């Protein structure tokens, strides 16, 4: 079997390459909506999808373009609060348009806080992105307008309707999330495999050589900040509207930024798959730990111990990954596949 390509030639279909996406679509749109319990969707899949998308966004900036950022959760907050306000203040704005506008708002803020990257590198840039983290949280708390003058700055998700279909139930929110993640991941996939994506990698690997051969270094860095922040902003909308349903600025704190950074370190820098593997790990790991802890130690393993042991094990894992497998779960996965296949 073959398909007609745009230039008229017939291209054979590569079934092996299509197998994986096909399985994902059957599972994602068929099996999960039909059979998954609401606990699985609400407690695991929704946070997994939102965090995966945020990690895809950060990976574009940090993994591919080499610009270290600790402001991810600020851009999630901008996305969430922008979506809330667009939805509140523009009557009848469709949800997809709200999400796009929220992403654009986050991209704008991302470019502003990306400006230091033109002069600063590495550790110093990371510290300067902390400014985004503190500034955004402060602004959202300080100016009541952003939360429609809610006394504690909390925003609640509006009714989610796309093209007349209400998506407020667990399954509906799941479908909204998974579709958004698939579409944006496909866009990022196209981007990193294009000439623009290779410019990102060129800037990351050797900025001087990149400039000399004509890569527009400044424009490339700001573009990386813009697109990355757009994606993270939309991830913030998913986090607020489909997973938590009510959020406050304090929910988007530095811990969240670190969590997303850990996801891409554990999953694998500059790997699309890594963002998903890392996010799955970060979401499932505490649940597993609490089950194992409860099984092994019974009542001794209370929530305080759980929280502490979670931090200890996660910290140790990050150190182990940085030393033993800097390319993360993604590379581990590849090696496993080679050994089996």
């Amino acid at each position, binding site marked *: 079997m073959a398909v007609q390509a745009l230039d008229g030639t017939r291209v054979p279909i590569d079934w092996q390459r299509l197998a994986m996406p096909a399985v994902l679509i059957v599972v994602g749109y068929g099996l999960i909506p039909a059979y998954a319990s609401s606990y699985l969707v609400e407690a695991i899949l929704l946070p997994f999808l939102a965090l995966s998308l945020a990690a895809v966004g950060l990976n574009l900036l940090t993994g591919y373009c080499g610009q270290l950022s600790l402001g991810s959760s600020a851009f999630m907050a901008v996305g969430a609060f922008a979506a809330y306000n667009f939805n509140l203040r523009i009557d009848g704005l469709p949800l997809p348009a709200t999400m796009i506008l929220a992403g654009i708002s986050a991209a704008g803020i991302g470019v502003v806080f990306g400006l230091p990257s033109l002069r600063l590198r590495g550790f110093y840039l990371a510290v300067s992105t902390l400014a985004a983290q503190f500034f955004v949280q402060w602004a959202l708390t300080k100016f009541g307008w952003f939360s429609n003058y809610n006394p504690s700055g909390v925003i609640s998700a509006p009714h989610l309707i796309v093209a007349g279909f209400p998506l407020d139930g667990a399954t509906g929110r799941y479908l909204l999330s998974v579709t958004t993640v698939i579409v944006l991941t496909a866009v990022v996939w196209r981007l990193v495999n294009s000439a*623009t994506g290779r410019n990102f990698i060129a800037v990351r690997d050797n900025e001087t050589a990149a400039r000399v*051969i*004509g890569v527009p*270094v400044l424009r490339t860095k700001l573009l990386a900040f813009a697109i990355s922040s757009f994606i993270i902003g939309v991830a913030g909308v998913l986090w607020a509207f489909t997973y938590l349903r009510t959020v406050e600025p304090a929910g988007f704190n530095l811990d969240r930024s670190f969590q997303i950074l850990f996801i891409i370190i554990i999953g694998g820098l500059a790997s699309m798959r890594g963002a998903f593997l890392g996010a799955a790990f970060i979401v499932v790991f505490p649940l597993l730990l609490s089950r194992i802890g409860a099984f092994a130690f019974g009542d001794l393993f209370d929530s305080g111990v759980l929280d502490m042991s979670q931090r200890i094990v996660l910290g140790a894992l990050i150190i182990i990954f940085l030393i033993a497998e800097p390319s993360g779960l993604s590379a581990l996965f590849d090696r496993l596949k080679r050994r089996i296949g």
Partner: protein
Amino acid sequence: MIGASLGAAAYERASEISAILAVANPVDDRRLARLSSRPDVVLALSGIGISFGGVKALSDVDLEVEVGEIRAVIGPNGAGKSSLINIISGLYHADRGRIAIDGQSFSQVPASRLARLGVARTFQNLALFGGLSVRNNIACGRVHTRRASFVEHIAGLPRARSEDAGIAEKTDQIVAFLHLESVADRLVATLPYGLQKRVELARALVAEPKLLLLDEPMAGMTATEKAEMAGFVRAARDRHGVTIILIEHDIGVVMGLSDRVAVLDYGRKIADGTPAEVRADPAVIRAYIGTAEGENGEDIR
């Protein structure tokens, strides 16, 4: 002691004064205008000087490079060869002097416009993009010809696709020219050093520059690799007509390969001419073999 410090102070003042004079030196400008208006001169440097923290790396260096020649710049370690190439490519900014590239005169060459000015370069220490394949590293060399935006790339619009196709074709030609077919799809970081040097040459050549700057392209290579690389450099000039400036430490390689040789020592140009002329120049022999004169000036050869 006092005399020495006075002398140093006077020397500093004198160099300051000469710097002020040099900035507005009409003779330099006129000489450069005359040189750069000649159609057969691709690159003309006049009165180039640069200091790092008070140490003069280059002073009053002139150099002109004619179309289609292989022009070597040699000199002992620390003679200022790399400073010179970094000034031509805009990575360093000369304190004084002017640079004319293909008729356009600059006091500071804009590095970000270098590729569009028709200049490509390689680096003394490899400067490849380790996370990209050999082919993609080479393709990056034509990034200055791209016009399509990232949106066109994501959507796969016609302009992005035709750019990709054109660049892929040019890349294939260079891959074949430099015999890189067997490693073209490997990550560049996994290649041995000699091949990585060749990939860097490929990335520079694919830009189809008028002027190619090679910063020690044979450094650290085995004798066989050196001969191979020299063959590629000569072939690049013969087949693509590119003008080449070759910075090299290894004097033997240079003599057989280049049309004219300039010799730098302690930041000054001490000789300039054909390889035969330069080889016979007593100043060059002194610079290379060390001081050929004893303490009191007597000839110790």
